[in-house]
Protein backbone atom coordinates (compact mmCIF):
# COMPACT_ATOMS: atom_id res chain seq x y z
CA UNK A 1 0.00 0.00 0.00
CA UNK A 2 1.09 3.58 -0.56
CA UNK A 3 0.94 6.12 2.30
CA UNK A 4 1.23 9.89 1.84
CA UNK A 5 2.60 11.76 4.88
CA UNK A 6 1.80 15.49 4.74
CA UNK A 7 3.45 17.75 7.31
CA UNK A 8 5.38 20.99 6.92
CA UNK A 9 7.78 19.85 9.64
CA UNK A 10 10.52 17.60 8.28
CA UNK A 11 11.10 16.34 11.82
CA UNK A 12 7.47 15.36 12.22
CA UNK A 13 7.44 13.54 8.86
CA UNK A 14 10.45 11.57 10.09
CA UNK A 15 8.75 10.81 13.39
CA UNK A 16 5.56 9.65 11.65
CA UNK A 17 7.68 7.43 9.37
CA UNK A 18 9.57 5.98 12.34
CA UNK A 19 6.40 5.43 14.35
CA UNK A 20 4.78 3.65 11.39
CA UNK A 21 7.82 1.36 11.29
CA UNK A 22 7.68 0.77 15.07
CA UNK A 23 3.97 -0.05 14.80
CA UNK A 24 4.76 -2.68 12.17
CA UNK A 25 3.82 -0.78 9.00
CA UNK A 26 7.37 -0.33 7.73
CA UNK A 27 6.86 -2.33 4.55
CA UNK A 28 4.49 0.17 2.96
CA UNK A 29 5.51 2.60 0.26
CA UNK A 30 5.86 6.10 1.78
CA UNK A 31 5.61 9.45 -0.01
CA UNK A 32 5.91 12.88 1.61
CA UNK A 33 4.42 16.34 1.13
CA UNK A 34 5.74 19.49 2.85
CA UNK A 35 2.71 21.76 2.60
CA UNK A 36 -1.03 21.66 1.89
CA UNK A 37 -0.75 22.31 -1.84
CA UNK A 38 1.84 19.56 -2.28
CA UNK A 39 -0.38 17.24 -0.25
CA UNK A 40 -3.30 17.93 -2.56
CA UNK A 41 -1.15 17.47 -5.67
CA UNK A 42 0.42 14.20 -4.47
CA UNK A 43 -2.88 12.82 -3.14
CA UNK A 44 -4.01 13.07 -6.76
CA UNK A 45 -0.85 12.25 -8.73
CA UNK A 46 0.51 9.47 -6.47
CA UNK A 47 -2.87 7.77 -5.84
CA UNK A 48 -2.01 6.80 -2.23
CA UNK A 49 -4.17 4.33 -0.31
CA UNK A 50 -3.92 6.44 2.84
CA UNK A 51 -3.13 10.08 3.64
CA UNK A 52 -1.76 10.98 7.09
CA UNK A 53 -1.92 14.76 7.32
CA UNK A 54 -0.98 17.58 9.67
CA UNK A 55 -3.68 20.20 10.25
CA UNK A 56 -1.79 23.47 10.33
CA UNK A 57 0.33 23.76 7.16
CA UNK A 58 1.41 26.59 4.83
CA UNK A 59 -0.49 27.07 1.54
CA UNK A 60 -3.54 25.09 2.63
CA UNK A 61 -4.65 23.48 5.91
CA UNK A 62 -5.10 19.72 6.09
CA UNK A 63 -8.87 19.97 6.32
CA UNK A 64 -8.94 22.17 3.20
CA UNK A 65 -6.92 19.51 1.37
CA UNK A 66 -9.45 16.87 2.46
CA UNK A 67 -12.42 19.01 1.40
CA UNK A 68 -10.87 19.65 -2.03
CA UNK A 69 -10.19 15.95 -2.53
CA UNK A 70 -13.74 14.99 -1.58
CA UNK A 71 -15.29 17.69 -3.78
CA UNK A 72 -13.21 16.33 -6.68
CA UNK A 73 -14.65 12.87 -5.99
CA UNK A 74 -11.44 11.48 -4.44
CA UNK A 75 -12.38 9.07 -1.62
CA UNK A 76 -8.85 8.21 -0.41
CA UNK A 77 -8.68 7.26 3.29
CA UNK A 78 -7.57 10.47 4.99
CA UNK A 79 -6.90 11.40 8.60
CA UNK A 80 -5.08 13.84 10.81
CA UNK A 81 -2.03 13.79 13.05
CA UNK A 82 -1.97 17.12 14.82
CA UNK A 83 -0.93 18.82 18.04
CA UNK A 84 -4.24 20.65 18.07
CA UNK A 85 -7.31 18.77 19.12
CA UNK A 86 -10.34 20.89 19.89
CA UNK A 87 -13.89 19.54 19.65
CA UNK A 88 -14.56 22.05 16.84
CA UNK A 89 -11.61 20.68 14.83
CA UNK A 90 -12.68 17.09 15.37
CA UNK A 91 -16.17 17.99 14.19
CA UNK A 92 -14.78 19.71 11.09
CA UNK A 93 -12.56 16.71 10.37
CA UNK A 94 -15.42 14.29 10.74
CA UNK A 95 -17.78 16.42 8.63
CA UNK A 96 -15.14 16.60 5.88
CA UNK A 97 -14.85 12.79 5.87
CA UNK A 98 -11.73 12.10 7.96
CA UNK A 99 -11.14 8.49 9.00
CA UNK A 100 -9.06 9.23 12.13
CA UNK A 101 -7.69 11.96 14.38
CA UNK A 102 -4.38 11.34 16.16
CA UNK A 103 -3.08 13.89 18.66
CA UNK A 104 0.63 14.70 19.06
CA UNK A 105 2.44 13.51 21.04
CA UNK A 106 1.53 9.99 19.91
CA UNK A 107 2.95 6.52 20.48
CA UNK A 108 3.46 3.44 18.29
CA UNK A 109 0.58 1.80 20.23
CA UNK A 110 -1.76 4.59 19.13
CA UNK A 111 -0.66 4.14 15.50
CA UNK A 112 -1.22 0.40 15.77
CA UNK A 113 -4.72 0.92 17.16
CA UNK A 114 -5.70 3.39 14.42
CA UNK A 115 -3.95 1.90 11.39
CA UNK A 116 -4.39 -1.84 11.88
CA UNK A 117 -8.07 -1.70 10.82
CA UNK A 118 -7.07 0.43 7.80
CA UNK A 119 -3.82 -1.21 6.68
CA UNK A 120 -4.40 -4.72 8.02
Amino acid at each position, binding site marked *: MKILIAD*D*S*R*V*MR*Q*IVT*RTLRQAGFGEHDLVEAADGQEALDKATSESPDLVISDW*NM*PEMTGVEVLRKLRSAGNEVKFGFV*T*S*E*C*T*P*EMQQQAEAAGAAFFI*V*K*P*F*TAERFDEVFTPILG
Partner: protein
Amino acid sequence: MSVDVVLSEGVLAEMVEQVWVSYLDPEGVSPLIQTLDKNQPSEVHSSVSITGSWNGVVVYASSTAAARKAAAAFLAVGEDEVSQEDLSDVLGELANIVGGNVKAMLPAGSALSLPQVVLAPETASRYPSAERVAGLYGTWDGEPVSISILQSRADVKEDTE
Protein backbone atom coordinates in the same frame (compact mmCIF):
# COMPACT_ATOMS: atom_id res chain seq x y z
CA MET B 1 -14.58 31.63 32.54
CA SER B 2 -11.14 32.30 33.94
CA VAL B 3 -8.52 31.08 31.50
CA ASP B 4 -5.86 31.16 34.23
CA VAL B 5 -7.59 28.25 35.95
CA VAL B 6 -7.68 26.21 32.74
CA LEU B 7 -3.97 26.77 32.14
CA SER B 8 -2.80 25.54 35.53
CA GLU B 9 0.81 24.53 36.00
CA GLY B 10 -0.30 21.02 36.92
CA VAL B 11 -2.03 20.56 33.57
CA LEU B 12 1.00 22.03 31.78
CA ALA B 13 3.26 19.58 33.62
CA GLU B 14 1.08 16.62 32.56
CA MET B 15 1.17 17.76 28.95
CA VAL B 16 4.93 18.22 28.95
CA GLU B 17 5.37 14.82 30.59
CA GLN B 18 3.52 13.29 27.61
CA VAL B 19 6.05 14.87 25.24
CA TRP B 20 8.90 13.39 27.28
CA VAL B 21 7.30 9.94 27.46
CA SER B 22 6.46 9.90 23.74
CA TYR B 23 9.59 11.39 22.21
CA LEU B 24 12.31 12.62 24.50
CA ASP B 25 12.52 9.93 27.15
CA PRO B 26 10.55 6.87 25.97
CA GLU B 27 12.59 4.59 28.24
CA GLY B 28 11.70 6.71 31.27
CA VAL B 29 15.31 7.17 32.34
CA SER B 30 15.79 10.95 32.11
CA PRO B 31 12.60 12.87 32.90
CA LEU B 32 12.36 16.64 33.13
CA ILE B 33 12.97 17.53 36.77
CA GLN B 34 11.19 20.67 37.90
CA THR B 35 13.34 23.40 39.47
CA LEU B 36 10.69 26.14 39.87
CA ASP B 37 13.41 28.60 38.80
CA LYS B 38 11.63 31.14 36.58
CA ASN B 39 14.88 32.84 35.70
CA GLN B 40 16.97 29.89 34.61
CA PRO B 41 19.18 30.69 31.63
CA SER B 42 18.50 29.58 28.06
CA GLU B 43 20.49 29.67 24.82
CA VAL B 44 17.78 28.89 22.25
CA HIS B 45 13.98 29.21 22.14
CA SER B 46 10.93 28.71 19.97
CA SER B 47 7.38 29.99 20.16
CA VAL B 48 3.90 29.79 18.68
CA SER B 49 1.21 32.45 18.98
CA ILE B 50 -2.42 31.78 19.72
CA THR B 51 -4.91 34.40 18.56
CA GLY B 52 -8.68 34.68 18.68
CA SER B 53 -10.83 34.06 21.75
CA TRP B 54 -7.55 33.89 23.73
CA ASN B 55 -4.39 35.76 22.79
CA GLY B 56 -0.90 34.87 23.83
CA VAL B 57 2.34 33.03 23.16
CA VAL B 58 3.73 29.63 24.17
CA VAL B 59 7.53 29.65 24.50
CA TYR B 60 9.87 26.64 24.70
CA ALA B 61 13.40 27.56 25.82
CA SER B 62 16.48 25.50 26.64
CA SER B 63 20.25 25.33 26.52
CA THR B 64 21.82 24.41 23.18
CA ALA B 65 22.89 21.08 24.68
CA ALA B 66 19.29 20.24 25.67
CA ALA B 67 18.06 21.26 22.18
CA ARG B 68 20.72 19.02 20.60
CA LYS B 69 19.71 16.15 22.85
CA ALA B 70 16.03 16.71 21.95
CA ALA B 71 16.86 16.74 18.23
CA ALA B 72 18.87 13.51 18.59
CA ALA B 73 15.93 11.85 20.40
CA PHE B 74 13.34 13.11 17.89
CA LEU B 75 15.38 12.06 14.86
CA ALA B 76 16.84 8.88 16.39
CA VAL B 77 20.42 9.93 15.55
CA GLY B 78 23.54 10.56 17.62
CA GLU B 79 23.94 14.00 19.18
CA ASP B 80 27.07 14.62 17.07
CA GLU B 81 25.01 14.06 13.90
CA VAL B 82 22.51 16.84 14.69
CA SER B 83 22.73 19.74 12.21
CA GLN B 84 21.72 23.35 12.81
CA GLU B 85 18.65 22.71 10.65
CA ASP B 86 17.70 19.69 12.80
CA LEU B 87 18.03 21.83 15.90
CA SER B 88 15.73 24.54 14.49
CA ASP B 89 13.16 22.08 13.18
CA VAL B 90 12.96 20.19 16.47
CA LEU B 91 12.67 23.40 18.51
CA GLY B 92 9.87 24.54 16.21
CA GLU B 93 8.09 21.21 16.54
CA LEU B 94 8.35 21.29 20.35
CA ALA B 95 6.69 24.73 20.44
CA ASN B 96 4.06 23.49 17.99
CA ILE B 97 3.24 20.38 20.03
CA VAL B 98 3.03 22.20 23.37
CA GLY B 99 1.21 25.17 21.78
CA GLY B 100 -1.32 22.90 20.10
CA ASN B 101 -2.03 21.13 23.36
CA VAL B 102 -2.38 24.47 25.18
CA LYS B 103 -4.81 25.67 22.52
CA ALA B 104 -6.91 22.54 23.04
CA MET B 105 -7.48 23.59 26.65
CA LEU B 106 -8.69 27.06 25.74
CA PRO B 107 -12.19 28.21 24.80
CA ALA B 108 -13.11 27.53 21.15
CA GLY B 109 -12.30 30.05 18.44
CA SER B 110 -8.52 30.50 18.49
CA ALA B 111 -5.90 29.90 15.81
CA LEU B 112 -2.35 28.63 16.24
CA SER B 113 0.49 30.22 14.26
CA LEU B 114 3.33 28.35 12.59
CA PRO B 115 6.34 28.17 14.95
CA GLN B 116 9.13 30.70 15.17
CA VAL B 117 12.64 29.63 16.24
CA VAL B 118 15.36 31.90 17.63
CA LEU B 119 18.84 30.47 18.20
CA ALA B 120 19.47 32.99 20.99
CA PRO B 121 18.42 33.18 24.67
CA GLU B 122 14.75 33.58 25.53
CA THR B 123 15.56 37.09 26.74
CA ALA B 124 16.39 38.02 23.11
CA SER B 125 12.64 38.02 22.37
CA ARG B 126 10.36 40.55 24.05
CA TYR B 127 6.60 40.33 24.36
CA PRO B 128 5.78 43.79 25.69
CA SER B 129 2.03 43.37 25.47
CA ALA B 130 1.91 39.99 27.22
CA GLU B 131 2.62 38.62 30.68
CA ARG B 132 3.59 35.15 31.90
CA VAL B 133 0.53 33.34 33.29
CA ALA B 134 1.97 29.82 33.66
CA GLY B 135 5.31 28.15 33.33
CA LEU B 136 7.23 24.94 33.82
CA TYR B 137 10.92 25.20 34.62
CA GLY B 138 13.20 22.26 34.94
CA THR B 139 16.38 20.46 34.05
CA TRP B 140 16.82 17.55 31.72
CA ASP B 141 20.05 15.66 32.40
CA GLY B 142 21.24 18.81 34.15
CA GLU B 143 20.40 21.10 31.23
CA PRO B 144 17.79 23.88 31.58
CA VAL B 145 14.44 23.53 29.79
CA SER B 146 11.41 25.76 30.28
CA ILE B 147 7.95 26.16 28.85
CA SER B 148 6.16 29.45 29.46
CA ILE B 149 2.67 30.63 28.59
CA LEU B 150 2.29 34.37 28.10
CA GLN B 151 -1.11 35.95 27.78
CA SER B 152 -1.97 39.30 26.18
CA ARG B 153 -2.31 41.98 28.86
CA ALA B 154 -5.63 43.07 27.35
CA ASP B 155 -7.00 39.52 27.88
CA VAL B 156 -5.59 39.28 31.40
CA LYS B 157 -7.27 42.58 32.31
CA GLU B 158 -10.60 41.35 30.95
CA ASP B 159 -10.38 38.14 33.02
CA THR B 160 -9.82 39.97 36.27
CA GLU B 161 -12.58 42.51 35.74
